[in-house]
């Protein structure tokens, strides 16, 4: 999972790599080695080794303690016919796609607005950033209360019978919408920041030239702004999808996977089955599959989105 992040960061800064090579000439400077090595060792010991250990356990029937046996690929075979796992993947993908699109559309729109000439610009930027610094769990319990008590109470007070007068979190068909709302509200802040950083890199003269040529606001956005910040769009899309695929805290605070198994994400099933159900080896196998799924999604996304990027220089 961390691999996808670092790939994205590396791809995003291709120009820096070429400048770094220049002063040293052909030979690699030892200073660079010493800068990288500690991080590499820490990463290897605390991340790569546990991952390899986990992959090893996915071929066993270990409950996480005590004795275990080698079971070969049977955990992976069993995963294929497990309906609970299947519905968790379906829920997670649906949730991640919807949330990623909503978050990015909203963040891009707000960032363009916050980058324009408006009153209280800095105050508003601060206000829009607040959701990012609040813990998801804490906000989640607040939203949970809103959905299960406040909104139905308001709806009843207004005399609205029907959908809104009962908690949507208690409805297997609609509970996921509540989680999407929380996730979008919380994640938009961080994406706004990245889009704002991107918008700063767009030279102002381009807009002057464009308006002299008679291009309207929408045309300017489509032909200048968006192409020039496409790199930032790629990063945001990849990072959002990756983190929403791993959704966990949101669900714990809002529905705890319920009603029933309607909002169980893959991460939640791994945690529940592995630690609560005692099927450590089986859920580790699930985690290995899920890691591959996330990596594949990130690579495909990068390939497709980078094709549309242009370089401002």
């Amino acid at each position: 999972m961390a691999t996808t992040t670092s790939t994205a960061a590396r791809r995003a800064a291709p120009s820096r790599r070429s400048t770094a090579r220049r002063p040293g000439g052909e030979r690699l400077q030892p200073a660079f080695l010493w800068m990288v090595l500690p991080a590499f060792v820490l990463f290897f010991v605390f991340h790569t080794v546990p991952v390899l250990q986990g992959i090893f356990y996915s071929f066993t029937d270990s409950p996480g303690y005590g004795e275990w046996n080698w079971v070969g690929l049977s955990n992976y075979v069993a995963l294929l016919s497990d309906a609970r796992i299947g519905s968790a993947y379906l829920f997670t993908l649906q949730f991640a796609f919807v949330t990623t699109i909503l978050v990015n559309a909203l963040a891009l729109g707000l960032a363009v607005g916050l980058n324009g000439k408006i009153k209280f610009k800095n105050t508003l930027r601060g206000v829009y950033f607040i959701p990012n610094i609040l813990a998801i769990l804490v906000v989640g319990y607040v939203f949970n209360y809103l959905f299960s008590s406040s909104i139905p109470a308001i709806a009843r007070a207004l005399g609205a019978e029907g959908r809104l007068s009962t908690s949507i979190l208690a409805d297997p068909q609609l509970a996921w919408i509540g989680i999407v709302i929380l996730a979008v509200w919380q994640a938009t802040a961080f994406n706004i920041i990245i889009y704002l950083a991107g918008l700063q890199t767009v030279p102002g003269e381009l807009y002057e030239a464009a308006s002299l040529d008679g291009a309207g606001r929408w045309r300017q956005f489509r032909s200048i702004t968006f192409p020039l910040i496409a790199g930032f769009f790629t990063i945001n899309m990849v990072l959002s999808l990756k983190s929403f695929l791993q959704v966990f805290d949101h669900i714990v605070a809002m529905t705890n996977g319920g009603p029933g198994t309607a909002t169980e994400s893959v991460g939640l099933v791994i945690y529940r089955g592995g630690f609560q159900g005692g099927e450590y080896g089986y859920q580790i196998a699930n985690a290995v599959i899920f890691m591959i799924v996330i990596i594949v999604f990130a690579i495909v996304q990068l390939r497709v989105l980078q094709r549309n990027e242009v370089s401002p220089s």
Partner: protein
Amino acid sequence: MAALTALTMLTAAGLAGCSSSSQTELLFFQFKPEAVAFFEQAAADFEAENPDIRVVVDNVPDPETALRTRLVKGDVPDVLTLNANGTFGELASAGIFADFADAPVMQTVTPSYAEVIADLGASAPGAVNGVPFAANASGVLYNEEIFAANGVEVPQTWDELIAAAQTFEAAGITPFYGMLADAWTAQSPLAPLTAQTAPDDFFAARFAGDTTFEQGWEEAALKLAELYEYTQDDPGAFGYQEGTRAFAEGESAMLLLGSYAVPQIRTFEPEFTISSFALPATDDPAETTLVSGVDVVFTIGADTPHREEAMRFIEFLMEPDRVAAYAEEQVAVPCVEGIENDDPALAGVQSYIDEGRIVGFTDHQFIPAVPLTQLLQEYLATGDTREFLVDLDTAWDQVAQRRTWGLGAVQG
């Protein structure tokens, strides 16, 4: 020079600190959120009597997950309180806990509760991997005042129970308060319903593959859904906290929970007497049994280096006065012989305890990996009985199939 002096003093202070810490430190893993104050006080009292031991009380939320996470790290606590359920049985059979079969403290325990512990699972034949401390009685809690005001008698049969619910509904009182946001609450009425309507050897047959939930549990599932027709609107939006409060405030006549919920309800200071009765699932009062399980069991990590100190702590906790005090405070059934609890909330079920008309919790027979709680919550939201039973069978078979190391002692 000054620096050197300071350094010497620091070292001396450090050494002095060491010499006083010849104390043994016991890590006490405490699962019961309702009893945090009790066990912290007991640990302090124990420390006062045993100055060589320091007890670190670790009150954990979501204890079973916390324990399993510790086990994955190979870090078993010295002393534990646990709920004696399916997970306890599974861990006991995996040899995580010490054996108490020959411990002197077991002589004081009510034999039937020692049996309950051994039946859940054991590290070896004849082993008992825990000391039962307090048991609960799981039936129906009711508001005596509302019952009297509406002229409703304590139901002896299933039909009387439904008739009572209809009477309350007609009077504009919520019969049962639904708390399905906390999915486990549905397991409370499920236990007596399945115990009384499914065949006695249902689980033995299910493990052997001779029966299915579709065959054995249909009546219980239908009756469970029927009970949940008599809740307030939108039962899925409210949890244990809201439910116990609503009952305490007189909003509902009954609550489908056991004696363990009474202390929580009393924190809201209800102005009526809380009573209880065993849930009748059939129309023959003689068939009614009370679901009772060991709510708190003490145990010791099998490999702890402080076995002797841990045992001393458990013996201290099992002293009759302390057991009685706990039972009174937590409205629990004491597991030590010769001690009784005359709390009015237990009066209605006392005869079942005395006569031994007791069955264990159904869900303790379940392999923990089967998502019973989730399927149950889904079922009560959708009401599709067939789908619930089929899903339960499928989940059970799949877990059984992929578990090569056996199904734990629940099997036998």
